[in-house]
């Protein structure tokens, strides 16, 4: 065991792990964070706290994570390389660990173009893979990125993202291998709608033995409406929503669409459970946190193991 | 400027519009004397600078006359000219000269009638628009 992370314990014990996410509010509303956290209490093993998701300013992931921690929950701190240089990141990581946050996810982040501050500078002092290296070095060698000694290092369980649906497809497994070589302990994937393509990607993952070196949590997103399905299909870079999903949503009357979205989600989880190398699920119910419990329950993943 | 007679500069390609002007003459087709024809080896050789200078010197209207699409003697001089005209029209807008005072037209060497018609139409259009703001400012300057 590398860390005290609840997520690591669940995974190491061989359980299918479940994580979900909480997008911090766009204002000083700590109660919003608590409210979103409440929906996930006892439902998931760790709660991802997004870091200026879609390049929109929100309460910092560190502060929101700290609030969740105070509530006795297990936050998973997301850090994007877009907004901070390596000094600021390391400071936040030490700060996070000092506040009891022991699990994190290293990301590059959406380009500022997509957010509400397109005029801002994109920092990208280091990239997500270099961030993984940095955190691992802090944890395992007790050294800062710059080489100086770090007293009482943060024992972070290190996560990274993978998108099996982006191009070039042949690099998708290789890049995952680079993240694992850099020190990623677990992976959360982009939302999976195209299970066939995901299966193909996992074949590549298994052929390199990567599923044995790192835990892979499959990304799941319930779709609320046919409009949302179309938007994700056409407008979100790196998303792969097959036409049949859009058609299934469209076949339902408006009021039945959310229910259909949840059903698709459960079916997807059931299919993914059968794929060798899938170590758990990351459920991204964007502004729909109240539905996560139902999904986890219907997918037969409740109660969560006590470790 | 009650009896406004516009000054129009026409940059005419030797291989088409300039020959068409000749043709118009031999066919006894008249066109307004306001149009000052400048022969160029290809419409693509007309530079933005030539057009801008024409306006600076007081032209009320300018047009570049090149070959029909696909018929340029030098392959694509006419399409280059069309892009140059579009560019200068945007610049004219910045300066504060109505972009419609500048046009790109095409014709073949045999189109004497079209040459006369284009010359007449453009002259009438510019006459309706009145003197270019630069022409007007030059005149005001002279009067003062």
């Amino acid at each position: 065991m590398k860390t005290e992370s609840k997520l690591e314990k669940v995974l190491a014990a061989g359980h299918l792990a479940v994580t979900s996410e909480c997008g911090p509010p766009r204002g000083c509303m700590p109660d919003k964070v608590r409210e979103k956290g409440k929906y996930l209490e006892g439902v998931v093993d760790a709660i991802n706290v997004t870091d200026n998701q879609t390049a929109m300013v929100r309460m910092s992931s560190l502060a929101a994570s700290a609030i969740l921690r105070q509530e006795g929950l297990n936050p998973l701190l997301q850090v994007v390389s877009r907004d901070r240089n390596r000094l600021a990141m390391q400071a936040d990581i030490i700060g996070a660990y000092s506040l009891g946050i022991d699990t994190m996810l290293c990301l590059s982040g959406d380009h500022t173009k997509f957010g509400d501050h397109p005029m801002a500078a994109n920092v990208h002092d280091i990239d997500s893979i270099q961030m993984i290296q940095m955190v691992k070095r802090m944890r395992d060698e007790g050294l800062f990125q710059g080489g100086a000694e770090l007293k009482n290092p943060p024992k972070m369980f290190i996560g990274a993202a993978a998108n099996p649906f982006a191009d070039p497809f042949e690099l998708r497994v290789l890049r995952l291998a680079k993240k694992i070589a850099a020190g990623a302990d677990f992976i959360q994937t982009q939302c999976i709608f195209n299970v066939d393509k995901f299966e193909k990607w996992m074949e590549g993952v298994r052929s390199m033995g990567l599923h044995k070196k790192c835990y892979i949590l499959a990304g799941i997103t319930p779709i609320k409406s046919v409009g949302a399905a179309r938007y994700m299909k056409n407008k979100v870079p790196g998303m792969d929503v097959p036409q049949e999903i859009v058609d299934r949503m469209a076949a339902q009357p408006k009021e039945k669409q959310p229910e259909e979205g949840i059903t698709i989600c459960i079916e997807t989880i059931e299919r993914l459970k059968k794929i060798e190398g899938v170590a758990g699920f990351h459920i991204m119910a964007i502004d729909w946190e109240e539905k996560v419990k139902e999904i986890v329950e219907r997918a037969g993943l409740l109660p969560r193991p006590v470790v | 400027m009650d009896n406004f007679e516009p000054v129009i500069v026409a940059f005419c390609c030797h291989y088409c519009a300039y020959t068409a002007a000749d043709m118009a003459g031999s066919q006894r087709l008249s066109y307004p004397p306001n149009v000052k024809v400048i022969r160029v080896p290809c419409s693509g050789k007309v530079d933005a600078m030539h057009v801008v200078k024409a306006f600076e010197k007081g032209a009320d209207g300018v047009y570049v006359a090149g070959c029909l699409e696909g018929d340029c003697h030098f392959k694509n001089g006419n399409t280059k000219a069309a892009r140059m005209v579009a560019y200068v029209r945007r610049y004219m807008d910045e300066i504060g000269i109505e972009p419609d005072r500048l046009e790109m037209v095409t014709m073949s060497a045999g189109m004497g009638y079209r040459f006369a018609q284009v010359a007449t139409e453009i002259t009438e259009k510019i006459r309706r628009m009145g003197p270019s703001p630069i022409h007007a400012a030059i005149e005001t300057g002279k009067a003062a």
Partner: protein
Amino acid sequence: MITAERKPLEELIEYIRPYRRILLVGCNECVTVCAAGGRKEVGLLASGLQMALLKAGASIEVREHTLERQCDPEYVEELVPMLDGVDAVMSMACGCGVQEVARRFKNKPVYPALNTKFMGASERQGVWAERCMGCGNCLLGETGGICPIARCAKQLMNGPCGGSTNGHCEIGDDVDCAWALIWERLKELGQQDRYVEIAPAKDWRAGKGAGPRKIIREDLAE
């Protein structure tokens, strides 16, 4: 080369409005090649400025001159006899040229006519694209001759990110994914193993990180 674009005429007119006579100075180097500030553009701008002011009932005399290279003091010296009676200088060079003129003529206001954009190459006639950020420690040898710092929107040294679609960058279909290009090129060269190596965090001291940079060639420096 260094690429640039002319500022909007309106902005330039605001700069020169107080003056009666200005010197408009072009440069025969990069900005001539990218059609922003060479002799021809100097002529076009001089005409445009004069017409715009004339139209507004004002007038200005614009002297025109184009230097061989505006970022070298030897050439800037050429301007000395032309500055007599000139109220201000407007430079059509890149930011380097503007500053060189400003440094030489301390009591003349110097205004930029261009927005300096980037170090780039000509993709085709009339199209220039960014190629280099001057990071001071070239890694093109590792990346198949395509720079991820200048050409990846997130300057990922270990890309591509999850937004790469069909060879395009997530910021727009008109932008190539640098890492898709790098991968294609590495394959062509049979250097796929280069991709597998993790590029370590960059030392930005060679670049802007250490503050303004200077090169001193001892054998040449006087």
